[in-house]
Structures are given as structure tokens and as C-alpha cells.
């Protein structure tokens, strides 16, 4: 009896889970980046491969438990013993994971091994407890050097710029929200002023940690205008859940206006 | 005392199978400890290597006298391995007086090593090196790694000297036997071996 119930429960759980995944009850938001479809495709591929294993594993488990509960006669081993199982695991699962490694590494390579477009718009990102700030180089195209000792958030000097002494820093534009032109390659440089943080935009399919002491490049191209949330996914302290910023993907002309307005606010 | 005799001593006529690898359990335990401790030292040295590679303008404070001091320390520790070996041999030959003599020599050499090492430490400290400070103004990573890695090693040496003292006393009183001397010897040789990594990495690589 217990065995039959167990089998039924396992099958039900499997079907409900599979249903939820297949019908996308809760699912990834729309993809707005050029590289995103590769990641989505890889997720779909993995769902297929792993999902089959999941369903097969649970169903076989359930059916054996259903069938062989109680006294069913003299016990017997599966024909061939463990050899077919081991071969199955090595050959089938081995091929599967090899395939996933290869296809997956292509997707990964497409995101991380591709050099950023030289014409990319470069934006500096500074993360700190518990906000992001962004920096555009301004008309001179040069970022002023950073002086951590000058960081003073009360005076809104979030990056530690010294415009009085560094000519390059004079026209740097610091913003609380990141605006980018659509269809233009973007190259971010991530640095953190205190602890580890992360830059996660679900719609962009980008997640990258900020590591204090390192400047980490991230590049992407957004293909759909809109306003999206950037959230922190690396535990950074009490305000972690509230650490966010917005990404505005704008048309080129809107972007130019927006940047002008931001420059005027400095 | 082997396992077999032990069981008899415990008042049982049955005879337990001797250890499958012919190793007495304390000795086996020491081997396992050495494997684990090697990992611990490995992690410390990995951290040192990581710091070393990632740091520009690493401080290299050691002049000729420090290297000479280090060489003497190495020679002292190596000799102590020899005397330890002699102590184990003597224990195997059941020569109590010799065991006492050689263990004493090992302890003495270990103590000299520790003293020389502490002299080096105090030299560095008087120069202004600290766990967190570099008197030459560069990065402080040398102090942090040097004091922690050699500190760990020095702790092992001092623990070893004390342990040898206990073994010597126990052996003299007849509570301990040759297996205890051998186990202590294993530990002592391991501490020596670690020094063979620590010396080139921490001293030779930091000579200016």
C-alpha cells in the first residue's frame, strides 16, 4: 500500500513540476540583449536534456516501487547486472554532459570571449553600500582618475573625482540611473568601493559580480527600449534587498537629450 | 606494543587481527594527521603565492645575514632530523640511554632553531615590519604572509619540542615504548619537510 501511494505521489509531483516548467508559470522575462537568445537557448536545451532525465528517473523509480512492493516472489537482479547501468551512465549521460559542455561553452564564449566592440560606449559603474552610480566620460571622451579618499556621498562625490585638479574629470557625468542608446554596444567597467556586489539585469541576461579591488568589464547590446531594474545579487549587507538602479534603454536622440540633462545637473 | 599483545594485556584470550597494513594505529593516525596538516600548510603557502603574484613591489627585506641565519636554521633543523632518526633507531634497539640522549639532542636543536627564528622575527619587528605594516612604505603583504606562515611553522616546532619532552619522560618511566618515539619522529620529520618548502619560499625568494 505504502509503495503504491509513494509511486502515485512521485508521479504526481513529477507531472506538476514538468507542467509548471513547460507552461512557464513563472518564467524568465523578455530578452532584450543580442547575446541573450544564446543563453535562453542553452536553458531550453538543458531543460530538455535534464527534464528527460528527471522524468525518466522519477517514473522508473515510481514504477519499480509500485510493481515490486511486498512479496512478489523470489528476488532477482536486473538482467546483465550493473554493467548496462554503468555503460548507460558513461555513454548516455557522458554524451549528454559533453554535448552540454560544448554547446554551453559556445554560448559562454559568445558572451565572454568576444572582444568588446571598439566603438562601444564606455560607462563606469561604481557599486557601494547600497547603491550604484554610473559615470560617462563627457565630451572629452576621457574618464578622470579616481581618488577613493575623496569619496564623499554627502557632497554627492560618489566616485571620488577631483574636477578642480584633474582636467579629465571636469566633464565627467555621474548619474544615478544608467541610460544607454538602443542597438549600440555598451562596455561597462564595474568596480566596487566597499564589499562585493553584483550587476544583474534579468532582461539583459547579464549577471556579473563587482569585486573590490578589481575592475571588471562587461559588454552587451540592448535591442529594445524600455526601463529595466538592475538589482544586486551578491550579499552586501543590510540594504542588500534594496540595492538597485534603473537601466533606461533609449533611442539615440532620447539618449543624447537625457545625457545633456544629466550633464546640466552636475 | 602491538595490537596482539594489547589484547592479551586487556585480559582477552582472543587475538585480534593485526592491523591490515602492519601499521600501529598511532603511527597511522600520525600519517593521516600529516596528510591533513600538509593541506593546511598548502593553503597557507597558496595564499602566500597568490599574494606574491598579485602584489607589485613586494618587500624583500632579507640581506645576507638573514639568509645566512636561515641557512644555519636549516642546517640545525636538518641535523635534528638526523638525531631524531638516531633516537628512533635507539628505541628500536631498546637502548634507553641512547633514546634519552638523542631525543635530548633533537629537542636542543629544535630549541636552537626556534631561538634563531625568533631572533629573525625580532630583527624584522625592530625594523618596523608588522603583520600589517611595511617600514619601506610598500605593500604590507610580506609581513602578513611571513609572520603567519613561519608563525604556523614555529608553532609546530615548539609543539614538537614539548611533545618530544613528554615522549622522553614517558619512555624513561616505561609508560611509552618505541612506537611513541617513532610516531613523534614522523611528526618531527614532517615539520622538517615543511621547512624545506618554507625556507626557499619565505627566505630565499625574499632576499634583496
Amino acid at each position, binding site marked *: 500500500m*505504502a*509503495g503504491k501511494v509513494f509511486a502515485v505521489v512521485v508521479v504526481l509531483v513529477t507531472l506538476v*513540476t514538468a507542467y*509548471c516548467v513547460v507552461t512557464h508559470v*513563472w518564467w*524568465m522575462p523578455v530578452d532584450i540583449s543580442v547575446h541573450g537568445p544564446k543563453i535562453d537557448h542553452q*536553458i531550453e536545451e538543458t531543460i530538455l536534456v*535534464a*527534464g528527460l532525465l528527471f522524468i525518466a*528517473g*522519477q517514473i*522508473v*523509480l515510481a514504477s519499480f516501487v509500485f510493481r*515490486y*512492493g511486498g512479496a*512478489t516472489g523470489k*528476488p*532477482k*537482479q*536486473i538482467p546483465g547486472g550493473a554493467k548496462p*547501468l554503468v555503460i548507460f551512465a558513461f555513454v548516455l549521460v*557522458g554524451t549528454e*554532459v559533453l554535448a552540454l*559542455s560544448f554547446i*554551453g*561553452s559556445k554560448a*559562454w564564449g559568445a*558572451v*565572454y570571449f568576444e572582444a568588446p566592440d571598439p566603438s562601444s560606449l564606455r560607462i563606469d559603474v561604481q557599486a*557601494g*553600500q547600497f547603491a550604484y552610480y554610473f559615470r560617462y566620460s563627457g565630451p572629452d571622451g576621457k574618464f578622470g582618475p579616481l581618488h577613493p579618499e575623496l569619496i564623499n556621498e554627502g557632497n554627492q562625490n560618489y566616485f571620488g573625482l577631483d574636477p578642480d585638479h584633474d582636467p579629465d574629470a571636469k566633464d565627467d557625468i555621474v548619474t544615478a540611473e544608467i541610460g544607454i542608446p538602443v542597438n549600440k554596444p555598451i562596455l561597462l567597467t564595474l568596480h566596487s568601493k566597499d*564589499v562585493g556586489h*553584483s550587476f544583474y539585469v534579468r532582461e539583459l541576461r*547579464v549577471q556579473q*559580480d563587482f*569585486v*573590490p*579591488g578589481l575592475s571588471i568589464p562587461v559588454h552587451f547590446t540592448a535591442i529594445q527600449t524600455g526601463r529595466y531594474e538592475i*538589482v544586486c*545579487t551578491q*550579499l552586501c*549587507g*543590510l540594504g*542588500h*534587498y534594496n540595492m538597485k538602479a534603473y537601466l533606461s534603454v533609449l533611442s539615440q536622440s532620447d539618449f543624447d537629450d537625457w545625457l545633456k540633462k544629466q550633464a546640466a545637473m552636475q | 606494543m602491538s595490537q596482539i599483545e594489547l589484547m592479551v594485556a*586487556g585480559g582477552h584470550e582472543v587475538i585480534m587481527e593485526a*592491523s591490515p597494513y602492519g601499521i600501529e*594505529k598511532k603511527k597511522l*593516525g600520525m600519517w*593521516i*594527521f600529516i596528510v*591533513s596538516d600538509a*593541506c*593546511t600548510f598548502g593553503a597557507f603557502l597558496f595564499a602566500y603565492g*597568490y*599574494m606574491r603574484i*598579485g602584489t607589485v613591489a613586494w618587500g624583500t627585506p632579507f640581506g645576507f645575514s638573514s639568509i645566512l641565519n636561515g641557512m644555519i636554521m636549516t642546517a640545525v633543523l636538518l641535523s635534528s632530523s638526523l638525531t631524531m632518526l638516531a633516537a628512533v633507531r635507539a628505541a628500536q634497539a631498546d637502548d634507553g640511554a641512547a633514546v634519552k640522549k638523542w631525543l635530548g639532542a633533537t629537542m636542543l636543536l629544535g630549541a636552537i632553531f626556534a631561538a634563531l627564528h625568533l631572533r629573525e622575527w625580532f630583527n624584522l619587528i625592530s625594523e618596523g615590519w608588522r603583520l*600589517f605594516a611595511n617600514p619601506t612604505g610598500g605593500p604590507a*603583504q610580506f609581513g602578513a604572509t611571513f609572520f*603567519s606562515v613561519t608563525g604556523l611553522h614555529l608553532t609546530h616546532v615548539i609543539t614538537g619540542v614539548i611533545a618530544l619532552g613528554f615522549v622522553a619522560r614517558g619512555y624513561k618511566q616505561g609508560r611509552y615504548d618505541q612506537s611513541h618515539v617513532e610516531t613523534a619522529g614522523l611528526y618531527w620529520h614532517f615539520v622538517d619537510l615543511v621547512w624545506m618548502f618554507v625556507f626557499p619560499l619565505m627566505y630565499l625568494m625574499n632576499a634583496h
Partner: protein
Amino acid sequence: MAETQVHAAHHAPSQGFIRKYVFSVDHKIIGIQYLTLSMVSAFIGMALSWAMRIHLAYPDFRIPILGWLSPNGAPNGLMTPEYYLSLMTMHGTIMAFFVLTAAPFAGFGNFVLPIQVGAADMAFPRLNMSSFWVTFVGFLLAAATFFIPDGPPLSGWTAYAPLSAVGSVAGPGQGLGQTLWVLSIAMFCVASLMGALNFIVTTLDMRTKGLTLSRLPLSTWAWFIDAWVSLLAFAVLLPCGLLLALDRLGGTSFFIPGGLVFNDQLQPHSGGSPLLFQHLFWFFGHPEVYIIILPAFGIVSHIFPTFIRKPLVGGWKVITFAEIAVGTLSFVVWGHHMFVSGMSPFMAMVFSVPTLFITIPSVIAVLVWVFSLYGANIRFDTPMLYSLGFVSLFITGGIGGFFLAQPSTDSYLHATSFVVGHFHFTMGLSAIFATFAGFYYWYPKIFGRTMNEKLGKLHFWLSFVGVYCVFITLHLTGFAGSVRRYSAFVDDFMIPLMPAQRFMTISALLLGAAQFIFLFNAIWSRFKGPKSSDNPWGATTLEWATTSPPPFDNFGGRQLTVYHGPMEYDDEASVMQTSPEASIAGT
């Protein structure tokens, strides 16, 4: 510590309550002490998870007891974000170390392993006693953080530097609380190393006559392999913790880079690397999940043959080699925790491949369990139900691994609740289920009484369904981009997921409530349960060849001789390992 003295102590039980039950060198008492500590820890950890789940789904709900426990952290019973993170940190720490590492390995291992190898005690009984008491001090240090003004640390059980390294400038709990935490973990490391050493030497050196390695019970095999993994992994966590303590207390900068600014003030550190911490931590951290799951493998593989009345497919070899492969591979996959951490993207691929390949031995283990059921006569006693539940949970958990092992898919799912769901299935609940299986299985041996079967089954059904309700939902919300370690959901993005949050909270409350059935059953049966025979399950290994509970020296001075492997089952018939009768299953 003369050998003879220790030896004599085995055969003359110490007198007096303190020597007998508190500072006991008897491995059985120590095993029970570990199990008790784990059980207390598990209920604390569960209470913490309740508080967190309630706060997430019903942020305005007041929990008066929290307000009483910490007027600062939860004024009027409403949790502050820092208190949420503190509870989360302590939930992770207590569950990962003091429950999942302690119970199936140190708890059952201590009680059962020496008996299964036919020894009177562990190889080093006093070392064994110190293991427990050092663990206990570690536990007290961790528990003490709840009662200091600043509260427990909030940097998670992974304690990533520099958050954990810079001290109280990083936020509440990061001062004394974090220091106590580091000391607690260092204590736990030392205790685990001593325990692992003891397990290895006992397995190698203390086996009784005829008990070759190929005849070892599968649980002993798993503990033995696990001890090796522990020995190497905790040996690295210890220096990691020591260096973190040096950064916190000695002013060094191992894990703290230069130029950090907290509160507009430049910190005095320079030159360290947060990635170094992550490498050292995950070099331990990934094997740690196998340290947790390998004893579960062993317990389940040990229980299966008894209740299916035949040997496992492939005998002892296939499952054991799978375990060895898992244990070995576990040391070369740590980088998959760091795919998005700023580690070289090339290294990500290097780490991805072994991570995916660790699936193969895991799949072999699962296939062994599942296909052993073929043609069996399964008995559905509670231990077996829990073992079957373990297999189901482990399959489900393992599937999530495919997504997290590949850097490309991980870059979306990393740090979402998908990860939380995944590791709760694989290492959390799987190991807990195996622990329950072991508990119901060995309870008659430990206490000489049988647990109530009806309550046991009820406990199982509620737990099994509850686990799926909570943790599958976590996977699904993870796909939707729900971020883990958030103390409240204020994003536009997360608010639509609130119904799922409420569903999980209600399920988690029920799941937790079911555990009180277990608690009641365990305590009630201890005094009122029916007396158990020496071998109630008709099993074959040495722990069933002695009385229930076993005498002080396990076999009353008998020296056993082993003639068979541990899986001599054929339907109703079975042959004890100690029986000179002919083999019926050829093991």
C-alpha cells in the same frame, strides 16, 4: 596516554554520571551526543527558517518571540533587514555545519562505525571525546552571537570577504558577532579534522577478523570515504578561517584590497584579494556538500538491501567506486561557485567540465538504487520510505545541477532562488531524509526500543510532500529571476511572485510542523516504545549481531569473525556477516 590504560578503560565502563554520560569516551554516548546536538540545532535552524519565511511572505506579521529575543533586531516582533540576514546566516551555518555535517557523519558514524567494524571503540576514544566537546564549544560560540548586543553576523554562511573581514564598518553584526562566528567555524574545523582522522584509523586499523575492505558495510565505506574528504577539505577551511581572523583581529589584508571606502572613510587595508577568500572557501565549500551527502549515500545503500531483501546491483563495488569518484571529483569543481565572480572566463569553462562530469558517478549511484528495486520484495517500513524519498529528492536536486554547472545558464540563474531550491534538495533535504532513514533504522539499536511506525509514516508523507511544495516552487521563482538573500521584496519584479512566496511559507510551516511529530515520536518511544529485539529488521551487519542497545564494549568481549559481505539477502532468508554458513547471495 598509555595504550594499556585506554584499552583497559574500554572494558571497565567509567563510573559516575559525568564520566559516563557527559565526558564519556564511549563512542556510542558520543554518537548520541552528536545526534542530540544536531537535533537541537535542526530545530533551531528550522525555527529560524520559519521566521524568515513568515517575514518574506507576510512582512507585516509580528513575531512576538523575536521581539522578546532581540528587541533591537525585531522591534515589536517586526524583523529588521539586518536581523533577517543574521537569521539567514545562522540558519545556513547551523544547518550546514551543526546538522548536516554533524548528524549523518559524526552522529551515526560514531555510534555505528566501530560496531560495524567489530571494534570495542574508536581508535582514539579520548580524541573522539574532544571532537565532540570542541564541536560543542563551537556551537556555543555560534549560539552566543544571538545574545550579544550587536547580534549575529549577516554575511551568510559563506562569509564572503571583504564584508566579513573589515569589521563593524560593514554593518551590524560584523563586529563581535562575525568574530565569534569565525572562531566557531575554526573550532568546528578542528573537531571535524580530529573526527575524520579517528574514522580513517578506526576503519583501517580496528576491523575485526575477516572483515576485509570488500566486506565492509556500505555505510562504513561511505563514512570512510567521507572522512578522507573531510580531512582534506576542513584542513583548508581552517587556514581560510585563520586568515580571516587575522584580517579581522591582526590588521592584515589577505582578503581586503586597498582603496575601500566605508562611510566616506578610506580603510587602512591594501593588497588583499576577495577572490583568494572565495578560492579557499569553495575549495572547502564544494567538497563540503559531498561531505554532507556521502554519508547519506552510505546510509541509504546500507538500508536498501535490508528492505529489498537482495544485494544492490553491482554489489559493493559499483556504489563504492561511484562514491570514491564523487569524493575525488569534488575537489576540482569548486570554481563553479565563482562563474560570475570575476574569475577568468576561461577558468569558468575549465571548472564547468568536471562539474558536469560529476553527474556520471552520481547517476551511477542513482541507477544502482533504482534498479536494485527491480525484481525485489520491497518492505515499506519507515526507514525504507525515507530512503526511497531520498532517492527521489536526490534525482530532483541533481537535475538542477545541470543548469548551475554551465557558466552560460548559471549567469542567469546564479544567486536566484533556483540555487536555493537546488541545494536544499541535493544537500539539505536529501541528507536530512537519509538522516531520518538512519534514525528510524538504528533507533532500536541505539535505545533498545522501536519507534511508532504509524507516526513515522505520517511524518514521512507530510515531509515528502512538503519538501516538494517548498523547494520546487523556489526553483520556479528562480527562473522568474527572484533573487536570494533578500529580506523583503520591494522590486517591481518580485512583487508578482508574492503568491508563490505565500504558498512556500504555508508549505514550510506545515513541513516544519510535521517535524514535531518526529520529535514526539523520538522522545515518546524512548520511554514507551515497544522493546526491540536485537535484530528487528532482519539485517546482516555486525551492529545487529549484538544486543540492543549494545553493551559498553559493543560485543561483551567477544571477538567476532566475519565470513561474508554485508548484503547476504535472499527474500526471507539472510545470513549474518558473522555466520559461517554458506553465502546465499554471493557477496
